[in-house]
């Protein structure tokens, strides 16, 4: 499929087209994944960041309270998340080698493995050897989003720091796969650039990776640019109809690929998207460092504003009422080695 064909589909607002895409996607999703939805909990470890990305609440120029959790602190957060039933954790940091080096992440992974079966990281891109160290420490998954594949736009919104290096970031999933990671999540930040061009490039990226590293379980995320403390940052809006088509098209072209949905979306939309192609979602999320147990809400600086604030129990109830089986464990920790 070419970017022109994708553009045509995204711009075709005939209800019948949208419905036909959604039906086909839903059928494929049920066949591949059944009526199951995997749940994970995000844990923000640090918001120190050396990159200046214009759309992000954590960027280096932003005057927010900078925090990095110490082991005793994140252990407390992990215990809270674990007590809610979550067994897959996604640990996130800002992009700072200095504040959250591999040694820090390794320790966090080792402690996380006491509570969780699946451990993934969404942190600054690293070298293959560093990923190998993390894999050996129990990390199974890496999430790294290119945000936009439009180089010009990429340099406009990534003003300084490591993230400015487009090519290093692009090759990050390859390095993570080479290091043995089982799950790799790619994504684009919808709203930054032309969605059909970005989608086309994302699909190409995914195909390249599937060819080179067929054993990896891939998933994709389509966060839409959100407000941070009510400040709007998007340059081009992707409306709900386009969003549904993006999910459906991805499922049709990649029947086995996981599709994540974040708490950035309104509950009502999240609930409908479950039927069409979503396979993974976060639950009980808090996007502030120390947000679960350590800080009062008034003193939190979130990475983005959450639209869906339902607790894990509420999400589980909702899934069950809609005939979905919530999956808490889809991996069992084994000693990782290549």
């Amino acid at each position: 499929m070419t970017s022109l064909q994708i553009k045509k589909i995204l711009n075709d607002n005939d209800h019948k087209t949208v419905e036909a895409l959604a039906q086909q996607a839903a059928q494929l999703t049920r066949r591949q994944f059944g009526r199951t939805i995997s749940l994970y909990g995000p844990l923000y470890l640090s918001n120190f960041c050396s990159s200046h990305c214009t759309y992000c609440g954590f960027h280096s120029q932003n005057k927010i309270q900078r925090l990095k959790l110490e082991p005793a602190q994140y252990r407390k957060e992990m215990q809270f998340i674990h007590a809610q039933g979550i067994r897959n954790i996604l640990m996130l940091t800002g992009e700072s080698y200095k504040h959250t080096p591999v040694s820090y992440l390794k320790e966090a992974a080792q402690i996380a493995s006491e509570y969780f079966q699946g451990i993934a990281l969404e942190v600054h891109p690293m070298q293959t050897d560093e990923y190998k160290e993390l894999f050996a420490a129990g990390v199974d998954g890496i999430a790294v989003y290119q945000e936009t594949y439009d180089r010009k736009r990429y340099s406009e919104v990534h003003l300084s720091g490591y993230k400015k290096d487009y090519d290093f970031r692009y090759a990050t999933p390859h390095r993570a796969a080479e290091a043995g990671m089982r799950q790799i999540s790619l994504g684009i930040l919808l709203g930054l650039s032309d969605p059909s061009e970005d989608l086309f490039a994302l699909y190409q990226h995914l195909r390249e990776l599937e060819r080179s590293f067929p054993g990896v379980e891939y998933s994709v995320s389509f966060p839409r640019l959100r407000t941070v403390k009510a400040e709007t940052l998007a340059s081009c809006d992707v409306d709900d109809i386009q969003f549904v088509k993006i999910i459906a098209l991805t499922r049709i072209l990649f029947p086995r690929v996981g599709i994540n949905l974040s708490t950035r979306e309104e509950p009502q939309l999240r609930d409908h998207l479950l039927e069409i192609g979503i396979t993974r979602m976060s639950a009980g999320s808090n996007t502030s460092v120390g947000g679960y147990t350590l800080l009062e809400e008034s003193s939190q600086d979130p990475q983005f504003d959450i639209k869906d604030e339902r607790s894990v129990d509420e999400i589980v109830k909702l899934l069950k009422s809609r005939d979905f089986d919530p999956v808490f464990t889809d991996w069992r920790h084994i000693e990782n080695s290549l």
Partner: protein
Amino acid sequence: MTDTPLVIAGKSFTSRFLLGTGKFKNKQDLADSIAASESEIVTVALRRIDLERHEENILEYVPAHVTLLTNTSGARNAQEAVRIARLAKASGCGNWVKIEVINDSKYLLPDNHETIKATEILAAEGFVVLPYISPDLYAARALVKAGAATVMPLGSFIGSNQGLKTKEFIQVLINEIDLPIVVDAGIGAPSQAAEAMEMGAAAVLANTAIATAQDPAVLAHAFALAVKAGRMAYLSGLPLQHPVAKASSPLTGFLYNDVPAN
């Protein structure tokens, strides 16, 4: 007509239908389907077993008389499959293991070579090993040597409901391998399960078709009946089994008939 039981590693089973436990919309549907399928062996992925959470623990829904066959879903090589099997045993899931080694997330085809390696190691450790493979005669022979308890060839791509796309290759295994051949993966309808049994397969395993049916328990029961019907047909010596045609007008009769040539 009397049938002999299905015997795997010295254990006898009346049912020749095995059920997979993934993709069900809730645990009750799974429990109902196990009952309706009359299965005596069900396979569960270790990665999906949460021993800590009573309500979500899939094992709570598997009746005591059913043999638990833990599978190594998620393993990408022999080493990982071996680790998962050992962990399953240590977690109290028993020593029956279905080896699944898949290093391709797009097609989900099993890696026969790594599967043979894992079977060798685990069989030597006393596991009852049921390896899942792409139907290949050499791989099946190597599995016999490695100590496998059955051979489980795929009928078509897993989850595809496409039926016996690999029929001829499975027939070769049925003809040549002295272990129970359990047809696994791709079986999307009772008629396809019956077809596999008519060919002489020892048993059939299904999952996706049942788990994603509108009424899983009803389809599970239909599968149970189809497997029985297919087995009966096989035992009856149905004509399809004889690949060499019996022509009604012999072509070589003239060699023996005492008919004078004109």
